[in-house]
């Protein structure tokens, strides 16, 4: 049965997939973000001048589907902070 972890990411308990294109984001035993393209954008790069605080080291972290390039999730992150781990029970 297909269940949502987020509106953008689904799992059948075996693998995680992009809900837009069905791209395989890897086994459900691992965080789905491991199978996504991740990038840390400095605030001003991500959001333009309105996000420019004048301080480096804070990012809009993006997780992107390697299949369709849909932005699956974002998080505000300081350099070095672990990615947030959203997951469903395996069964």
């Amino acid at each position, binding site marked *: 049965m297909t269940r949502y972890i987020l509106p953008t990411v689904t799992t059948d308990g075996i693998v995680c997939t992009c809900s837009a294109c069905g791209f395989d984001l890897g086994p459900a035993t691992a965080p789905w973000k491991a199978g996504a393209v991740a990038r840390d954008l400095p605030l001003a790069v991500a*959001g*333009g001048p*309105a996000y420019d605080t004048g301080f480096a080291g804070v990012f809009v972290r993006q997780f992107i589907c390697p299949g369709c*390039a849909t932005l699956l999730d974002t998080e*505000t992150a*300081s350099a070095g902070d672990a990615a947030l781990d959203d997951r*469903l*029970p395996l069964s």
Partner: protein
Amino acid sequence: MDPMTFSIIRHRLFRIVDEAVITLKHVSGSAITNEGHDLMVSLYRADGTLLMGGVGFLHHLTSAAEACKAIIRRFQGQIGEGDVYLLNDPYTAALHTSDIYLVAPIHHEGRLVAWSACFVHVTDIGAMNPGGFAPQAVDIYSEGFSSPGLKLLDRGEMRQDVLDTILNMVRSPEMVSLDLRSMIACCNVARDRMGALLTKYTAPVVDEACAALVEQSEQLFRARLRALPDGQWQSRQYLDVQGETARVLLTMTKTDDRLVFDFTGSDPQSRHSINCTKWAALGGLFAPLFPLLCYDITWNEGVIRPVEMIAPEGSIVNCTRPAPVSVATVGAIQSVNNAACTTIGKMLAASEAFRDQATAVWHANHFAIFKFGANQRGGYSIGILTETFAGAGGARSFADGVDIGGEIPNPISRMANVETVEGAFPIRYLFRRRAADSGGPGQFRGGTGGEMAIVQHRAPAGGIDYVISGKGARHPMSEGLAGGYPGAPNKYVWVHADADGAPGAPDRLETIPGKAEPVSWGVYPLRGRDALYVRWNGGGGYGDPIARDPNAVASDVTSGVVSSSAAKEIYGVALSSSGAVDDAATSVLRAAIRSARLAAPEAVQ
């Protein structure tokens, strides 16, 4: 029990809270209570558990329950009819010292049958800095008067020595006295109206209805939880005090009909007053939970039972005495609000049936700016900048966030008119408007925050001073959902006027002449021709920005809430010189954004 009587009693309990709120606002007459709706009134059962929560600052509903229980423990056996108790110690139950709880037993035919509790943010509590938020405090001892529970009224009689002691320790004793009077009046109304209800329906029937009401809320909430997917969702919030950054990390796990909020991994307590105690953290996570998950369920103890909180001792969300906490309500508590809003939003969005109840984070970064000084009419003024209550709505799965639309934990706030502020303080606004590009981009855009600038105007002392505190301005905090961006961060700028620049008519930050200095924490002057610029955060976005309807982007540009460069670079929308969407060029832009996303992946731990 008879469903009709049950329905009538439920409605009447609701109205009793309502009447008590009206009384509180009437008697107080203060701007923070009346405009900001920074208040709370609720009813509790005889054992201090929540019976009926009202609409106010929702992070108080559970803390005031703990305050009732603390009073029951301390005064067991001496609780008399007509007593009113005061409690404001954060390590016992309160959020911070300036949010005073008054807790009053309700007796019927000689038996204690219920409690009422209320709070207002009192004008002053005698902390290091005026107004209650004390950025310069180093511990709880420098945050003013605090009591783990005292009897203020003994069988209806004011204990004048106690009152005088409190008033002796605060800056504005008359106003604080009025704040206390308003809360006493509120307790009296709650007691009288409960008395009438008990007389009409008898104590056993009312008690049965109350028990049924709690039971019903628990059953309904558990059923709702069962209808939502099991899973674990995480969120993270940052607090910054002049470069010292602290994290709140939340893992929310939902299993069957239970919810666990685990703050393990959050940073240790800070030396600054942004910390919160565990009762405050509990209140902080329930504040969004009530309106997001229980919008159609009575807010009472039944909703609290299925929820567990784990907050490591000594962390920023469960600090140990004597850590300072006076900024908690705009510090760690709000971080908990935001973190819980994110994980609850993710859980709702993970359910196709409940996705339309999900929201990105609303107004995540309060700025407590208290202005004080001699005013233009020969008096003295002190008060909060009510723009902090103006907020910004988070985007939803079906609609944009509401621009300057408030916040979830205090659903019915409002901000003062410019004319009201200018009439009371010797200041003049240069502008106040929605802040362009502040709403988190997404398929549905977060509501914008706002921006404003003030200068002193005809101040007899040449200006005023202000206390500023909060969580800093280095981090976006209104997190997005499902690929939506967070809303833009707050920004506070002190513009030092040039020696002899012409005043002109600046209508945005860039045209205010002078040298800009960021400020975010402490006490500052606003004098001469200097200006204070404040921009507050927008709400988080929902979904991928390049999936946004290009016409909605064009309309945002026309309205001035999105810049044309953001339209192009973030939304991938090309506009003609008339402002209409260029479909072909938009497709090209969006394709380019997709390519760029996949072009240079960077490793993230």
